[in-house]
């Protein structure tokens, strides 16, 4: 009865609000009506599709999640740097090499900053890149298969944080180190950090045809922390900007010791100058060791190659290549506006934003107006490069995105809000709270020449949220704001997986039509693929047994196998013969010490089973595939190690 009266009063209350606001002119003023208006903005009706894809970094999950905007619905988790038992990524024999590094196999990482490939400064939707922060790596993910195709390890790096941002024609994906380290690594006292450690900034070329990555050169910078970076665009194309902190070069208690200098630097790197220097024979080849892992879509198999050299660049040897722009208060994000003129330093311990002018920077360089140097790198005068300051009234700016209409949007972690301000006049237009403590924000295309300024997504850093509680551990939370009007409008909250450090959005119309539906069986070149079902077989080679298996609705071929012995290593190489969209089959074997497999139409995957006990052991399809899915099963007879039962296999006998 009590509940009933609450409902009743809620209904009455909402009726009152509705009748009170006078909705006839279509302009809504009351909160209730506004909320229903906002509900319409995020409501994507059943059968309808979202306007944008949003790719959210999965943070410590090591993966990348795919969302729709404005609905906030999660579509997929793409495994990147972490083993993913759902599909068998990192467990299957084909994908284990993807997670190989110079440290051996690594099952997880901390994924940070996704960035979509560009042509002429605009999103082209071919690939998305993301960095592994902990064990420095860059991954390239296909935006037609939505699968990780390549992972390259970054040597001489540690805390691969100012990554993975791309230049305006995807010439390079850039990866900078957060932690400076001895280069090359060696046994030395930590206290001797200052002046001895170095920070590497890596430029990885991207083949315009197939996207293959190649570590072209590393700039070995002074031992600061290189926090974030972004490319120049338009007139500043050819430059890359990195924020630094800990220019104090402290090696302990950084929260105090790296916060002493009033200003740190934004490092401006002219990579075209460095390219010229290299073309003229510059640079030093240094021995090193790093993994380059490539997944081949036709063999459905990854290979890992160890690379042994890297070309290093001493920035003091390349005149005109590197300058420091003094920037207050340990800047975190560095963001370049769509015109390429403004370089925004988000001083994270400050209330203000510092905006540098690219034109002024070039003028200062031409006039050689330097304010000293650091380790031989010229420092420009703060006043000479300053375009303006945004007096925000907020605290702790971290990141800025752009709407393409002259406005910028900056997150403030400490004051937990998004502030909208105008480029050029630096006036604050609007501010809206976030729930709670926002880190990154994302406007689709918001870091390109051509943003799609309809929504901004704020990604919160603190897992405290406004949902039903789920014990001590929570997912993160995001807010969606409509920015199509003069002011921001908070229209939605939705949870996000892992801790999203940045996201990349793109209009659905650029990706959805080319999303691949199946793999063609005719193009499958996996060495253990069964291309014709009657060719399915079982082959013994000593203690190793290869099962060449096929699956189609709804049976395995073969589904009865005898002659397996305790102590064998049994590899199930399973090919899905479906050529129909969304008919994957799964595979799990009782007692297998690994994940199951999820095999897409036309694909071959391999799992290893080492039977430990005699008996007759079943396997089955784990992905409901048809009305006869429950019938999709089989048996393997396991005999003693000294048994002389012949290997045999069959289906339907």
């Amino acid at each position, binding site marked *: 009865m009590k509940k009933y009266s609450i409902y009743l009063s809620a209904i009455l209350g909402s009726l009152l609000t509705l009748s009170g606001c006078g909705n006839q002119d279509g302009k809504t003023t009351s909160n209730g009506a506004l909320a229903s208006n906002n509900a319409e903005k995020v409501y994507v009706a059943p059968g309808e599709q979202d306007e944008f894809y949003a790719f959210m970094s999965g943070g410590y999950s090591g993966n990348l999640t795919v969302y729709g905007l404005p609905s906030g619905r999660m579509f997929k988790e793409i495994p990147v740097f972490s083993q993913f038992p759902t599909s068998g990524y990192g467990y299957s024999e084909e994908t284990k090499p993807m997670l190989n590094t110079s440290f051996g196999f690594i099952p997880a990482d901390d994924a940070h900053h996704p960035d979509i490939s560009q042509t002429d400064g605009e999103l082209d939707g071919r690939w998305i890149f993301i960095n592994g922060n902990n064990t420095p790596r860059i991954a390239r993910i296909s935006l037609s298969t939505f699968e990780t195709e390549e992972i390259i390890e970054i040597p001489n790096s540690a805390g691969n944080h100012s990554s993975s941002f791309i230049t305006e024609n995807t010439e390079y994906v850039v990866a900078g180190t957060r932690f400076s380290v001895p280069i090359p690594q060696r046994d030395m006292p930590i206290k001797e950090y200052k002046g001895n450690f170095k920070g590497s900034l890596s430029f990885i070329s991207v083949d315009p045809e197939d996207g293959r990555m190649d570590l072209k050169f590393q700039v070995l910078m002074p031992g600061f922390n290189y926090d974030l970076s972004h490319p120049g665009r338009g007139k500043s194309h050819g430059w890359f900007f990195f924020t630094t902190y800990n220019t104090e070069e402290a090696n302990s208690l950084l929260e105090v010791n790296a916060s002493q200098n009033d200003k740190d630097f934004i490092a401006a790197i002219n990579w075209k100058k460095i390219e010229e220097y290299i073309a003229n024979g510059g640079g030093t080849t240094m021995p090193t060791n790093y993994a380059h892992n490539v997944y081949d879509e036709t063999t459905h198999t990854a290979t890992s190659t160890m690379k042994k050299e890297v070309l290093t660049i001493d920035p003091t040897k390349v005149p005109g290549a590197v300058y420091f722009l003094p920037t207050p208060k340990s800047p975190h994000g560095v963001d370049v506006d769509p015109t390429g003129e403004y370089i925004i330093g988000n001083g994270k311990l400050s209330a203000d934003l510092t905006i540098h002018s690219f034109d002024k920077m070039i003028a200062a360089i031409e006039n050689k107006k330097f304010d000293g140097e650091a380790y031989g790198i010229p420092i420009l005068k703060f006043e000479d490069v300053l375009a303006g300051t945004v007096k925000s009234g907020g605290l702790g700016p971290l990141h800025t995105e752009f709407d393409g209409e002259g406005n910028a949007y900056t997150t403030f972690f400490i004051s937990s809000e998004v502030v909208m301000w105008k480029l050029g006049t630096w006036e604050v237009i609007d501010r809206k709270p976030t729930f709670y403590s926002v880190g990154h924000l994302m406007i689709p295309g918001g870091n390109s020449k051509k943003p799609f300024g309809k929504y901004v997504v704020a990604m919160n850093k603190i897992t405290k949220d406004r949902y039903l509680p789920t014990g001590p551990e929570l997912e993160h939370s995001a807010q969606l704001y409509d920015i199509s009007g003069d002011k921001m409008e908070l229209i939605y909250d939705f949870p996000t997986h892992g801790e999203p450090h940045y996201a990349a959005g793109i209009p659905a119309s650029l990706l959805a039509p080319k999303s691949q539906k*199946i793999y063609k069986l005719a193009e499958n070149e996996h060495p253990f693929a069964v291309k014709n079902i009657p060719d399915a077989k079982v082959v013994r080679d000593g203690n190793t047994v290869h099962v060449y298996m096929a699956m*189609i*609705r709804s049976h395995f071929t073969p589904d009865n196998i005898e002659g397996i012995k305790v102590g064998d290593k049994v590899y199930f190489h399973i090919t899905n013969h*479906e*050529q*129909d*969209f969304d008919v994957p089959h799964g595979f799990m074997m009782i007692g297998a010490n690994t994940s199951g497999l999820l095999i897409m139409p036309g694909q071959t995957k391999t799992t290893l089973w080492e039977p430990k006990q005699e008996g007759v052991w079943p396997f089955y399809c784990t992905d409901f595939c*048809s*009305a*006869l899915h429950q019938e999709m099963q089989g048996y393997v007879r396991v005999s003693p190690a000294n048994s002389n039962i012949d290997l045999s296999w069959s289906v339907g006998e």
Partner: protein
Amino acid sequence: MKRASIIMIVGSLCLLGLFAFPLWNIMLGAPQYPDPLGMNIHITGIQGVSEFDLQNIDGLNHYIGMKTIPKADEMWEFNVFPIVIIAMVILGLLLGGLGFIGKIDHRYFLGWFVLMSVLGIMGMYDFNLWLTDYGSNLDPHAIIKVINEDGTPMTYKPPLFGYKKLLNFDVSSMPATGAWLMFIGMTLTLVAFFIGWKSKQSSSSDTNHKPATP
């Protein structure tokens, strides 16, 4: 009569569209297939609307015990139909040409139309026989056997023309571009007949009413 003969030639050439476009189209949609599966029936064989549609239709049909969709060399029709069409095109061109030079009159055009209509009806009849066999000649060991209310086994004959619900599938069967071109071509030959007829009438009346020249 020259105009009629040209129309006759154009009309019979329209039949060549059957070599480029499908004669008939059958689409199968279901809740699980928001993008429907489909087959295009050409005079030379059956093709999927999308690359793997035939394979996927066969995959579904095996549950209810239907035979696989015949390949081009498994049905005599796919050898004979192209020959018949070519023969009719040649015959049409010949009649048109003879009409143009005044060797024959418009009644031959009508003759062609009647012959083509008879052949077309025979073709439809044959096609319907195949559809009936395809939909009702089922494997007795089929996985799914559905019994009608009257106790007879359900059959799965797609409609010859129009729409039908078969279990979870919405099946539609319609003439496709090739057939529409053929219908247009046949209509043109009929038009050719009428124009030939009219021009003959008017020319004979012209002759009758021509004032005597001095």
